């Protein structure tokens, strides 16, 4: 009996498909069942003035917990602008850029979407973004705003920003009898404290500062170095300053061992180590606060990262951009400006502890300081005085990967730091053309 049904189904399908597939192969072969399903938002319509226009906004940052916050923002915006409806699509970070690239190349990108700073460089340099005009950006932090300005054109608005501070385990400092870190600390002070904490036990470590590209561009700045020359026309990866900076980091793993080697670390990540109470210091982002508050069973606080010859701190920002093919440029600009620069949006964002809005006026952020731990939250703002920008070039991802590969060899001890930097310099020069 089952086979009979199967056969009937088969026959039906063969005939249905043969009927439309026989004459014209590709485009028309479309089964009836799904043809009627509405393909909304794909074809922006010539909406009459009275109808609200619908714009689509795609993002990754709200994924994993802040979807409700974003919905709240959208509701507030739609209340202020009844003529605009925002349709939000939130996608996990991991495959966000793969899907976005496919949609952009396929011609079905949303009206506006979120990009991180690395991908922004690629998209902007390849001419895939619209200049955002007519949006009021006066409230936005200038450093952040400039990060998304290419050749005098504003292709993206900073949606939020985060920076990196040094988080430390107070209990371990007490146990080791070392004074807590201060904003005046240098890398040498850090080294001494780390050694004292390391002496507490065989599996207690002083610090974990990943030996990666991301740390490198900041730490070399603390030693007066950089990855590119001033006008970004040549790589300077193996300069003397850079070598000194990276040697300091690598020695902490291979020589003084105040930082765990990959073997000692095992499968646990840096956050896991810190939360387990066996790590004295960890330079990480302010996005760790909530997780650490929930999971650390010891006292911890934060401080501006120590420098060397000068201070330098990280800055991460996501931006929002406009699709040049959008039919509703004005509505999109209004939404993006509101999302990034309005106090209303900032208040909602802060109330839910979701990144920092990239505003110029720090008073608007007063509420942020009141949530503790950490006690010393003002260090988050103090750090903004020493921001160093990632060296954004068109082939950013490739540069990251090359440098990371060599740094990991140096950290594992299979290559000297000097050889690693020389090799990275040579490979970058060979594979990347600088504008």
């Amino acid at each position, binding site marked *: 009996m089952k086979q009979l049904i199967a056969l009937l189904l088969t026959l039906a399908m063969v005939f249905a498909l043969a009927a439309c597939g026989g004459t014209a192969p590709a485009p028309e072969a479309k089964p009836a069942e799904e043809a009627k399903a509405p393909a909304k938002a794909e074809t922006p319509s010539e909406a009459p003035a009275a109808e609200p226009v619908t714009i689509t906004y795609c993002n990754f940052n709200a994924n994993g917990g802040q979807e409700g916050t974003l919905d709240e923002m959208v509701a507030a915006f739609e209340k202020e602008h009844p003529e605009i409806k925002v349709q939000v699509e939130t996608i996990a970070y991991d495959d966000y850029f793969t899907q976005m690239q496919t949609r952009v190349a*396929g011609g079905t990108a949303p009206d506006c979407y979120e990009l991180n700073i690395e991908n922004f460089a690629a998209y902007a340099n390849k001419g895939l973004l619209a200049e955002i005009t007519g949006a009021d950006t006066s409230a936005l932090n200038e450093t952040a705003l400039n990060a998304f300005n290419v050749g005098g054109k504003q292709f993206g608005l900073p949606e939020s920003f985060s920076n990196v501070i040094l988080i430390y385990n107070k209990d371990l400092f007490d146990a080791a009898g070392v004074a807590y870190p201060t904003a005046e600390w240098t890398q040498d002070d850090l080294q001494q404290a780390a050694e004292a904490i390391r002496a507490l036990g065989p599996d207690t470590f002083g610090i974990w500062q990943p030996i990666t590209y991301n740390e490198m561009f900041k730490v070399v700045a603390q030693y007066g170095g950089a990855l590119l020359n001033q006008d970004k026309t040549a790589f300077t990866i193996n300069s003397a300053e850079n070598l000194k900076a990276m040697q300091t980091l690598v020695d902490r793993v291979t020589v003084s061992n105040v930082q765990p080697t990959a073997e000692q670390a095992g499968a646990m990540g840096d956050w896991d180590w810190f939360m387990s109470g066996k790590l004295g210091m960890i330079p990480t982002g302010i996005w760790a606060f909530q997780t650490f508050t929930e999971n650390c069973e010891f006292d911890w606080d934060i401080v501006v990262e120590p420098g060397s010859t000068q201070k330098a701190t990280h800055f991460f920002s996501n931006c929002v951009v406009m699709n040049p093919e959008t039919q509703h440029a004005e509505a999109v600009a209004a939404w993006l400006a509101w999302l990034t620069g309005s106090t209303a949006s900032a208040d909602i964002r802060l109330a839910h502890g979701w990144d920092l809005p990239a505003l110029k006026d720090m008073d608007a952020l007063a509420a942020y300081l009141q949530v503790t731990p950490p006690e010393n939250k003002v260090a988050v703002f103090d750090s903004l005085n020493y921001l160093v920008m990632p060296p954004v070039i068109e082939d950013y991802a490739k540069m990251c990967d090359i440098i990371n590969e060599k740094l990991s060899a140096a950290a594992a001890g299979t290559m000297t730091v000097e050889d690693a930097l020389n090799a990275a310099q040579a490979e970058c020069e060979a594979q990347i053309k600088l504008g």
Partner: protein
Amino acid sequence: MIHKKRLGTAGYYTAAIVIAVLAMIPFLWMLSTSFKSRGALMSVPIEWIPKEPTLKAYIKVFSKFPFLQTIGNSLFISVIYTLITLLSASMAAFAFAKLRFSAADLLLKVFLATMMIPTQVTIIPLFVVMNKMNLINTYGSVILPSIFRPFAVFLLVQQMRTIPNDYLDAASIDGASVFQVYYKVALPLCIPTLATLSITTFMESWNDYLWPLLMLTDKAKMTLPIALSTLNGQYATEYNVLMAGALISMIPIIVIYCFAQKNFKNGIMAGGIKG
């Protein structure tokens, strides 16, 4: 003799259990992780039995998205996907294995060749094709590719080739049409393979992530893997929640597996009776 047999039994179970333990370790760890609170996740040495078991992770999974609707979408897609694959692939396999036609060898090689190009470079072209056909944001975009599954065709060709031609000849001498030979003789003899294929096909469709993500942008059409991905943040992963979600999504496949397993036995019987 009896002694030897006992030894064989002991050996059999020792080997079987050792492999089973190896196979199960990560699964058991997933299970234990899913009952942990976040703080207890990555302790060294591994905490196999959570000290303070909690259902927090499961509650979070269930409260995060419209669970029934998502499961419903995934089931709908995967079941139809599997049925179409079984039908279409077994038909093609029958033609290749048992009907002689010119260019059969060449065509089978073309089928095989389509498996040899990485999907990473055909995904944008396929996206463009789907867009041209107005299939984006329809279930069809995710289901229709099932009418051609080269792996499935090839597997069934291999199975059908082992069916003795005498069986088929006997049936056609009795006056059965080609279609009757296909569904009355060839298909029943392939039941174990069809059962295997239904598990692997269902699983592939059930776990597929990137393609439905690209195709089904409408939230109402969201499938389970996409829904589960909404549990991950950019910076931090809550492994307990991740594992709880992964375990829940394994259940339907395990059910289907147990169900299909019964058909292994039926397959033996079908072979036995007809032979």
